[in-house]
């Protein structure tokens, strides 16, 4: 039994992996600026992103694609100097990851891959909602997660 994944889906998965790398880098920075309760959340978020990263890497490897590597560093939209700017970086990192996972949905007819992408999209929307609430970003839950505005 084999499951086809075409090149288009692989490209979308590489995009999701790149977003997961960026999110993990971001959270390392975020951890340095947020107070204890948010740091607890950030660590849980890191665990979730690590899991996603390794799942995507494994899947790409399994289909014979070379998983993209993380960049040594990423440009943040605004300088991170305090808890608020750190929270906003989390909002951005999560939004980027949501867009990438939505893109996976839009580039495959593989049902299992769609289900996996939807799970990532749903769980990421909940993660993002905490950071959006903490930074006063409305709506806390966008009506169409993964759409970049």
């Amino acid at each position, binding site marked *: 039994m084999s*499951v086809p994944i075409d090149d288009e889906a692989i490209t979308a998965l590489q995009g999701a992996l790149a977003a997961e790398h960026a999110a993990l880098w971001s959270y390392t920075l975020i951890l340095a600026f947020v107070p204890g309760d948010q740091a607890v959340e950030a660590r849980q978020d890191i665990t979730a992103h690590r899991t996603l990263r390794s799942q995507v890497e494994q899947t790409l490897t399994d289909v014979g694609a070379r998983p993209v590597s993380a960049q040594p560093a990423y440009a943040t939209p605004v300088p991170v100097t305090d808890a608020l700017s750190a929270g906003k970086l989390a909002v951005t990192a999560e939004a980027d990851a949501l867009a990438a996972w939505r893109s996976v*949905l839009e580039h*495959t007819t593989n049902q299992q891959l769609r289900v996996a992408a939807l799970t990532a999209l749903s769980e990421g929307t909940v993660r993002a909602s905490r950071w959006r609430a903490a930074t006063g970003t409305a709506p806390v839950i966008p*009506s169409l*997660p993964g759409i970049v505005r």
Partner: protein
Amino acid sequence: MHSGPPPRPAAPPLTRRRALSLGLAAGGLGLAAPVLAGCAAGSSDGPDPLIPLVTRARSDAALVTAVITADPSLTGQLDPLRSARSDHAATLEQEIARVAGTTASPTPAAAPTAPQAGADLNAVRQAVADAAREAAGLVGTVPIARAGLVGSVAACCAAYTAVLGAAQTS
């Protein structure tokens, strides 16, 4: 003017290496499960499968309106959900009209909700959980042009389900 989605092969083209072997994907995204037969590309006969999602989105928005009317203290918590569900109805309707090749033929707005017995926060929790399940159930089979939209609707409703908490069954 076409009626129905563009023709689409039932399965994506297979290139030799793009076959995922069972067992190798244990640590991956769970792709090793057998592929269910075909990827329905939205058959052109029969009603548009997105119509039930529109109906549900409208009725959810009406339910939330009724709940807020009954208990205005819930406005802050629930008004964003009402907006989201109204948004869902409008966006899904646009997609239905696009595929039908017509300009929007809006489904009738849900009748102004008469004061419903049991229109409370718990009913909203249940409704949004049902909505998440219904949309998620379609994500695997809708045509590729719709997967993002249906997935976003499902993710939004799932997130509200998580944030509002599980419905109490008592």
